[in-house]
């Protein structure tokens, strides 16, 4: 039996685990990236590789020690070096004496036959094609339910009466969804989760500010890689809306362009008319949209040395000025400390709160006049 692992990206492992297991593979669950993951990754990765590269390499080294023999991951479209990462990871693992197999999925709309072959090579349970399609649909259902839970946590955390309640409920909801295997079970677990979130005692009077989170996909989706920025902001009384979810990204890469992606591209058009790889253009487009939707601010997070995000970063001051929306950027690497990040976040939140107060004061002043 194949012993597979895959990158740890937020809660998505719960859905991948189900799909892999039902196709007849033993899953070595990737551990949540921690100190050990990063230490291993930094030790064996090229120095100037980005944070996601190092985290993934560390993850593979941790799972190979538990007997993992196959990596399942994705390639990439567009000129971002992440498209080559899987093969470089495999080469480094080979040099270290681990002969692991690599199954690297490319976007199916571009490489349909390749996609089919790779699915079959994981199909050790010899499922029929229709069963595989059903299984993928169920995995998709689960992933959407998980994203739904995360969105609720972003909305409720800044309003919770007791600090930490939302994070606990979110963890519990993930466990419920992990156990759910059929469509009905997933539906029930999702409904239970929604109920648990709604039962959290909230302070409806609290003045909550709204921040959009943009940037590179891995550091956006894996809280361990961004020093739990969403949770930290939530505890500061900030409602976060994240520009990217795995279900959203997959839709963009599976079907014809979704309406949302079109508008993001259109929004970015005056500033960045080209696809520059990674999520650089999305970062610009989402910032414009958050500005139009009158958000209080935008935070960009990206791995240190990430070219698409560096390009976006140099354009953002203009977007920020024209749309009157403050923007704060974090470039993350293994050196980034939580204390420094908290200091900057606190100052940014102060800025947004004072700006909002002033607006409401000047509005009252005009109405009084």
């Amino acid at each position, binding site marked *: 039996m194949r012993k597979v692992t895959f990158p740890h990206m937020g809660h998505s492992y719960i859905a991948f685990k189900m799909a892999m297991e039902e196709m007849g593979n033993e899953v070595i669950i990737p551990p949540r*990236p921690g100190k050990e993951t990063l230490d291993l990754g930094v030790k064996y990765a090229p120095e100037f590789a980005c944070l996601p590269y190092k985290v993934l390499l560390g993850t593979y080294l941790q799972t190979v020690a538990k007997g993992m023999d196959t990596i399942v991951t994705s390639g990439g479209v567009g000129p971002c070096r992440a498209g080559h990462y899987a093969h470089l990871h495999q080469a480094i693992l080979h040099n270290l004496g681990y002969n692991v197999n690599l199954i690297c999925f490319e976007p199916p709309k571009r490489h349909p036959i390749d996609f089919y072959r790779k699915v079959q090579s994981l199909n050790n349970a010899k499922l029929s094609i229709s069963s595989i399609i059903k299984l993928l649909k169920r995995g998709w259902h689960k992933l959407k339910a998980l994203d739904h839970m995360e969105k609720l946590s972003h909305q409720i955390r800044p309003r919770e009466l007791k600090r930490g309640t939302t994070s606990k409920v979110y963890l519990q909801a993930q466990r419920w969804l992990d156990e759910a295997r059929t469509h009905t079970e997933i539906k029930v677990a999702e409904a239970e989760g929604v109920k648990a979130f709604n039962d959290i005692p909230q302070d409806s009077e609290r003045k909550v500010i709204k921040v959009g989170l943009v940037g590179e996909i891995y550091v956006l989706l894996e809280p*361990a890689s961004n020093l*739990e920025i969403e949770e930290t902001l939530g505890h500061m009384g900030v409602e976060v809306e994240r520009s990217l979810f795995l279900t959203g990204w997959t839709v963009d890469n599976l079907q014809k362009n979704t309406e949302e992606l079109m508008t993001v591209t259109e929004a970015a058009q005056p500033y960045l008319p080209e696809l520059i790889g990674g999520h650089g253009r999305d970062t610009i487009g989402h910032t414009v949209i958050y500005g139009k939707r009158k958000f209080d601010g935008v935070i960009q997070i990206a791995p240190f040395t990430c070219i698409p995000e560096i390009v976006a970063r140099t354009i953002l001051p203009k977007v920020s000025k024209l749309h009157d929306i403050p923007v704060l950027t974090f470039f993350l690497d293994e050196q980034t400390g939580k204390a420094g990040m908290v200091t900057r976040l*606190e100052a940014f939140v102060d*800025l947004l709160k004072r*700006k909002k107060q002033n607006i409401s004061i000047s509005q009252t002043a005009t109405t009084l006049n």
Partner: protein
Amino acid sequence: MIAYLGVDVGSVSTNIVVVDDDNNVLINLYLRTNGRPIETIKTGLKEAASMLDPEVRIAGAGTTGSGRYLAGVIIGADVIKNEITAHAVAASILVPDVQTVLEIGGQDSKIIIMRNGVVTDFAMNTVCAAGTGSFLDQQASRLNIQISDFGALALESNNQIRIAGRCTVFAESDMIHKQQMGHCIPDIVNGLCEALVRNYLNNVGKSKEILTPVVFQGGVAANLGIKAAFERELGIPITIPKYFNVMGAVGAAQLAKEEIQTTGETSFKGFAVTNMPYHTTSFECDGCSNACEVVEIYQENKVIGRWGNRCPKWDIV
């Protein structure tokens, strides 16, 4: 009479101020932290208490700086604020129409853009300390001159020489090269000041709209060479406020005053805290793969503060 206490515990210095209700600074102390923040806070508070008019009652206390949480739990602060907000608040009360704040401290440097008394943008150095006080400290000791003489020496310079200041290590190589070529010390010192300013404006000040009045504060503002270099580079006059080296603490005191207006009563424990014994311990939490190193601070035998934890598990309610 009532007054407010502000404490700024930074990497290099610990500053303590007492500000009265009309924004007069009654006491300002600038002490070296020397890597012993608890000791420094205690001796500083003792000194402040002995200097303070017994008629003055502390109506509120605030802390800031990288050691703000530590200082906050020790003194019982009403407000614990990040240094960016504290510096901005201080600049706006001492120079009311300020639009730009340049702040250079021991290991960090920031730029704060303000419009109509409100912060609209800011930046803080991230990966590099080449634009901070520590950079100058390093170079001064390599040249074997006192850091306090640095600024005056720079002003004696007659020739402009360009030193690569992107990185402290390369700056040293370049500086040695300039010495071998026969340049005199004042020119080299001035070159270093310009290198720091260039670095600051290219890193921290990148794409920020610098408008007058510009206020320059933080420990490095004592250096006249840097001030002159800023003025040459920006082509506008720079104001150095009277209390430039304790501005963070002034801001913390002001923020405490604002906080008290809503809460009504201070949680300041009084100057007696300086007589209490404090000690810290740490442990690694095994709750998840984060393996957070949690630091605990004890006042006598009671835990008064914990930090380092990423989740609220170890929060003290």
